[in-house]
């Protein structure tokens, strides 16, 4: 950080676990730097300051990346970012020094010495944080979503999120980081591979390399050999070896008869090393609850320490906490009364030494609520859920509750030390959450806002006697459990596409036959449609079961009838247990079958009839009441041939809550939190649906450009990593705005390339006519062009890629095409047309891969061509809503 008086301070040094060549966003990183002498560290510090001054960052934060040759210390500057960066968020959370906040103050002319350090209060921000713990950041990847992508880690960043963990030592922090990732890992579980296989595997950096490294150590590979294969610093490897050695100690430690966890002193040491109860249970053939019971009986509990920027040199006032395990120390107490220090030791008799473990949590006796966050960002569970958690914090604070946040994602607002009253930077596992609850004793825990992560903990937490606020875990289970959910629908006489579950290939085949193809298959209990597929035949079912069952053995595979060409509708509603208010009804642009997270959608619906909307509202209310929803609920419907089907119900905050709240100008997450602690919707002033006189369109944003070789076709597997919203009085313009924001701007003139599947051809003439009337020219492949020409619509012909050059991809590369409409079905056709979509992506040509998307796009082009887009603030839209509500 530099201020306008040229004061410069270094906030944090971070060392990468993976050597140069892996993007720092994809590398495991460790703060502070571990393997540099002070002299070397000061070289980097001085160089950083020199770079900042030379580049001329007058005020604010910068990030400078160095490469150090571990053989001779030679230093190379890789890059500098004269701005806050991804790593500045990490550095802020790692040290407690809020870089962006201070940068803003510096930008308006304050100097570092004029800004107080929030955490210590009495000292200024013109200092360098010093830490007394070790921070590990582990990136979160989504390769399972992009099986065609090369998962080798390179200089192109491929991760979609990250988890950060804090422990007193690298070993503890590293093991905490593994369970923070929420990939069902609780430590270094063994990997089934031979040493030869592992050697080949670890030479190439991949997201899961560390488990293979652990396995290699387990199989006796030397640190020297592993270093030679990977160039990972021996210091890191040796720490891993200590963890693996400890595994052996845990396994072989003397124990009582029967199945019991290891001896107390071994358990203590294991916890200091960061072992989870679950991993210890695995190693000792016991259950997690046995280990927890053993710990409780011996009084071995997590103690909490503060992130205070100063290694305890000053008193800290912000409860920003992390867990650790420390051996107790002892205090001498004299038998007689009086101050021990003042008395002569001999004359006062022998002291008694009493254990005095230290914990800095110092819980208050206020009425408090714990809010569980959403963990690392991933596809399907991103910052939308952090938005909800933060709103819950604000809402409960307004009502006078103490708010306690638990999360491990450094990229979030929820993990700012000044968002909630107390912050526990911890993994979201049962063990870590229970430890906090034991200390804090809240009136309840909110699991509704953090997506699937905390929802999964609802039942186990309740079993441990933890009160869950809002919708009961039993209701959550009724909505999540297929069989129980079917009973509800039956009771309410609501329709669902035919569905079944299967545990084996034979079961799956039988179910699919009974339901009728095409069917949608997926594992249960997942967000973001992981491993979800539409299958048309038995062979595909067999292939799917082989992969899916391997992916998640504990849960059955769900099989649903796939409703072709249905309109999908998302509804978010809020209920106080008595009254249900619909927050918003969103009509998807793309047809059902495209994951709702990847589909664009419009609020309010742009094509549904009033009657259909009324039915949607009725069914939503009925479901909310039946499930006794207290808080938020999301329902996905499909409309096919004027029949309404329920696809799924999520009794929690959904991904669309921020979008709906911004569309209708009402903070739904905030109100839901207040409802969950007993407020009624009437008290909150929300008794009827909000009708808006404008349209908002949400569009998904995709990371396709990161993954060479990945097709941009949309499907039931969610692939988007973000979203944008467009708002306007007119649907077409709102859509146009959403496309521009998603970096897929609609052209107003030029040439449109069209290649569609046969099923989409009937929709084509109307679209082509509009395009031609707007002055576009159309180029199409032979079949499509012939089809249009027959109807008297002018379309030029271009070769398919397989028909010889020049072909349609050449035209895209020559920038002769301004918009691509390409829909396909079937694997063969997908393969043939892949190069079209790849070229469109590569050459930044706007494109759509669905006929519904094309229809919306052309509507958008039509209205934008007629009237220029004006600027209007969102506040003005909401004011207009209040002044002149929609009919």
């Amino acid at each position, binding site marked *: 950080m530099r201020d306008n008086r040229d004061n410069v301070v270094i906030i944090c040094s971070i060392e990468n676990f993976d050597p140069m060549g892996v993007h720092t966003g994809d590398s495991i990183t460790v703060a502070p730097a571990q393997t540099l002498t002070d002299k070397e560290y000061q070289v980097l510090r*001085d160089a950083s300051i020199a770079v900042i001054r030379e580049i001329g960052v007058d005020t604010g934060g910068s990030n400078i990346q160095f490469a150090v040759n571990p053989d001779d210390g030679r230093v190379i500057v890789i890059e500098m970012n004269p701005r806050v960066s991804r790593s500045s968020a990490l550095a802020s959370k790692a040290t407690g020094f809020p870089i962006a906040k201070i940068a803003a103050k510096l930008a308006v002319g304050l100097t570092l010495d004029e800004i107080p350090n929030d955490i210590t209060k*009495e000292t200024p921000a013109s200092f360098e944080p010093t830490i*007394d713990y070790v921070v590990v950041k582990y990136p979160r990847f989504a390769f399972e979503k992009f099986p065609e992508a090369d998962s080798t880690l390179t200089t192109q960043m491929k991760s979609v999120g990250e988890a950060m963990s804090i422990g007193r*030592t690298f070993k503890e922090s590293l093991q905490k980081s593994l369970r923070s990732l929420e990939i069902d890992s609780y430590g270094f579980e063994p990997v089934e591979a031979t040493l030869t296989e592992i050697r080949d595997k670890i030479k190439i950096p991949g997201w899961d390399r560390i488990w293979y490294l652990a396995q290699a150590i387990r199989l006796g590979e030397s640190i020297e050999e592993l270093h030679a294969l990977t160039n990972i610093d021996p210091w890191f490897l040796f720490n891993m070896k200590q963890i693996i050695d400890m595994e052996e100690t845990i396994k072989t430690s003397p124990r009582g008869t029967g199945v019991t966890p290891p001896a107390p002193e071994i358990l203590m040491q294991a916890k200091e090393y960061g072992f989870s109860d679950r991993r210890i249970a695995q190693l000792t053939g016991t259950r997690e609850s046995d280990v927890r019971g053993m710990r409780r009986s011996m009084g071995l509990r997590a103690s909490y320490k503060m992130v205070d920027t*100063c290694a305890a040199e000053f008193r800290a006032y912000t409860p920003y906490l992390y867990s650790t395990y420390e051996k107790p120390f002892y205090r001498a107490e004299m038998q007689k009364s009086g101050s021990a220090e003042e008395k002569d030791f001999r004359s006062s008799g022998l002291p008694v030494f009493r254990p005095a473990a230290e914990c800095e949590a110092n819980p208050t006796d206020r009425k408090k609520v714990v809010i569980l966050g959403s963990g690392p960002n991933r596809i399907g569970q991103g910052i939308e859920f952090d938005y909800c958690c933060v709103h819950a914090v604000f809402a409960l604070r307004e009502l006078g509750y103490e708010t306690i946040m638990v999360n491990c994602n450094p990229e979030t607002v929820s993990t700012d030390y000044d968002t909630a009253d107390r912050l526990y930077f911890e993994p979201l596992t049962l063990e870590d959450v229970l430890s906090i609850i034991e200390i804090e004793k809240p009136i309840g825990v909110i699991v509704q806002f953090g997506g699937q992560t905390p929802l999964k903990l609802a039942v186990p937490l309740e079993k441990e006697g933890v009160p869950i606020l809002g919708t009961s875990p039993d209701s959550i289970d009724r909505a999540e459990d297929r069989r129980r959910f079917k009973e509800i629908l039956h009771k309410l006489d609501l329709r669902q596409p035919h569905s079944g579950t299967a545990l084996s290939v034979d079961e799956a085949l039988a179910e699919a036959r009974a339901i009728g193809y095409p069917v949608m298959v997926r594992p249960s209990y997942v967000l973001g449609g992981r491993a979800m597929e539409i299958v048309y035949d038995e062979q595909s079912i067999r292939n799917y079961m082989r992969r899916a069952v391997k992916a998640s053995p504990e849960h059955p595979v769900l099989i649903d009838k796939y409703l072709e060409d249905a309109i999908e509708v998302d509804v978010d509603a809020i209920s106080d247990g008595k009254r249900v208010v619909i927050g918003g009804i969103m009509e998807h642009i793309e047809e059902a079958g495209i994951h709702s997270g990847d589909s664009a959608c419009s609020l309010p619906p742009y094509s549904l009839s009033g009657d259909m909307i009324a039915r949607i509202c009725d069914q939503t209310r009925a479901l909310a009441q039946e499930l006794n929803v207290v808080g938020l609920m999301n329902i996905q419907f499909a409309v096919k041939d004027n029949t309404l089907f329920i696809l799924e119900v999520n009794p929690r905050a959904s991904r669309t809550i921020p979008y709906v709240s911004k569309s209708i100008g009402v903070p739904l997450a905030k109100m839901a939190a207040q409802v969950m602690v007993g407020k009624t919707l009437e008290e909150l002033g929300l008794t009827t649906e909000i009708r808006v006189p404008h349209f908002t369109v949400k569009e998904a944003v995709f990371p396709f450009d990161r993954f060479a070789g990945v097709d941009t076709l949309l499907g039931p597997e969610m692939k988007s990593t973000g979203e944008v919203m467009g708002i306007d009085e007119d649907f077409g313009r709102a859509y146009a705005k959403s496309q521009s924001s998603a970096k897929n701007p609609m052209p107003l003139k030029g040439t449109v390339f069209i290649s569609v599947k046969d099923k989409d051809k009937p929709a084509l003439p109307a679209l082509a006519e509009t395009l031609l009337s707007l002055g576009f020219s159309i180029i199409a492949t032979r079949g499509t062009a012939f089809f249009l020409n027959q109807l008297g619509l002018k379309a030029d012909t271009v070769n398919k890629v397989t028909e010889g050059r020049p072909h349609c991809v050449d035209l895209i590369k020559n920038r002769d095409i301004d918009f691509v409409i390409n829909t396909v079905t079937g694997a063969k056709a997908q393969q043939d047309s892949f190069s079209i979509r790849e070229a469109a992506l590569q050459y930044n040509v706007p494109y759509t891969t669905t006929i519904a998307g094309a229809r919306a796009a052309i509507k958008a082009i039509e209205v934008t061509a007629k009237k220029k887009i004006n600027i209007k603030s969102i506040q003005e839209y909401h004011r207009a809503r209040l002044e002149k509500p929609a009919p």
Partner: protein
Amino acid sequence: MNRNEAKALLVLADGTVFEGRGFGARGETVGEVVFNTSMTGYQEILTDASYKGQIVVMTYTQIGNYGVNPGDIESCAPSVEGFVAKEFFDYPSNWRSQGGLGSYLKENGKTGIDGIDTRALTRHLRDRGVQMGIISTEDLNPGSLLEKVRKHPGISALDLVSEVTTKEPYAWSEPLWRHGDRPSSSHVPRPNRDAIKVVVFDYGVKMNILRHLDAAGFAVTVVPATTPPEEALKQADAIVLSNGPGDPRSVPYAIDSVKYLLGKKPILGICLGHQILGLGLGGSTYKLKFGHHGGNHPVMDLAAKKVEITSQNHNYCVDIRSLGNQVEMTHQNLYDGTEEGMAHRELPVISYQHHPEAGPGPNDSGHIFSRFRDMIERA
């Protein structure tokens, strides 16, 4: 892991007992327990003679990571009485390393303890103030150790300087470490007839002060603390009063020397040298509750209105008000407002409480050595 896994105890004079593992040499050692918040530079800290009489607790948890090397010493051997950390790591990884910390401590007869809650210990010292402590790998009875540490007279009254000062004068010519230097690289002294001759009174001088003086173009001679000032003057264009351990009031001979030297030659004081100068000018000093030990304290250069991040290691402070109008406060600690530097209003005398030589710590104040040179050239 070739670690000495022996059990060890650390007992504070107030009866607080920490149980951990022994590290380095086996044995028993008593000292004043202070904490240091530097995240790097443990070898410099171990060999800083200012820590004579003290047991140092590192607040950073992973110590030993990069081993030890001959280029990172501040005196010939470790001066600390004992060393405390959350986790000592004896598998060093650094190109400069020539050995592990454990064997280094062992060879030098120093006892360490790890595996204890150093943050709890630090908070305890912060709240209760520094106090005496004892580390033992031999006697594991806390009651008996408590008795031993309470019997110890403490270090305030001791002349620790006499234990660490050089026996004989010597000339210094090793340069500053530059990136790319191999630890073994030999330095060929440069004959420089124009160099300003500076005599350094060694109260426990850190080698980095000498290296900085060399870099600033001085011909450096180091003399014992008890060297008669008139003798020192014979060979000096300027005088440096070095850092060192303990209470400045326990070295009256040094204070007397300073009184003699004042007004005769330009003087630079650093740390203990700064405090001795304060006393020599007729002022007084006081003891801080738990001292300043670390590498991140902001110090304001009051004239330039600029903040320097500084290396700190002191338990005593000059009471600037006791010096009246003779001096001007030039530097101030932004953490607690204590005085960090002063300049005499009439004489060419400047001095600093913090450590411009770094080693370990940031180099922000390194320009002070050329400032000293400029002052001499003007005088």
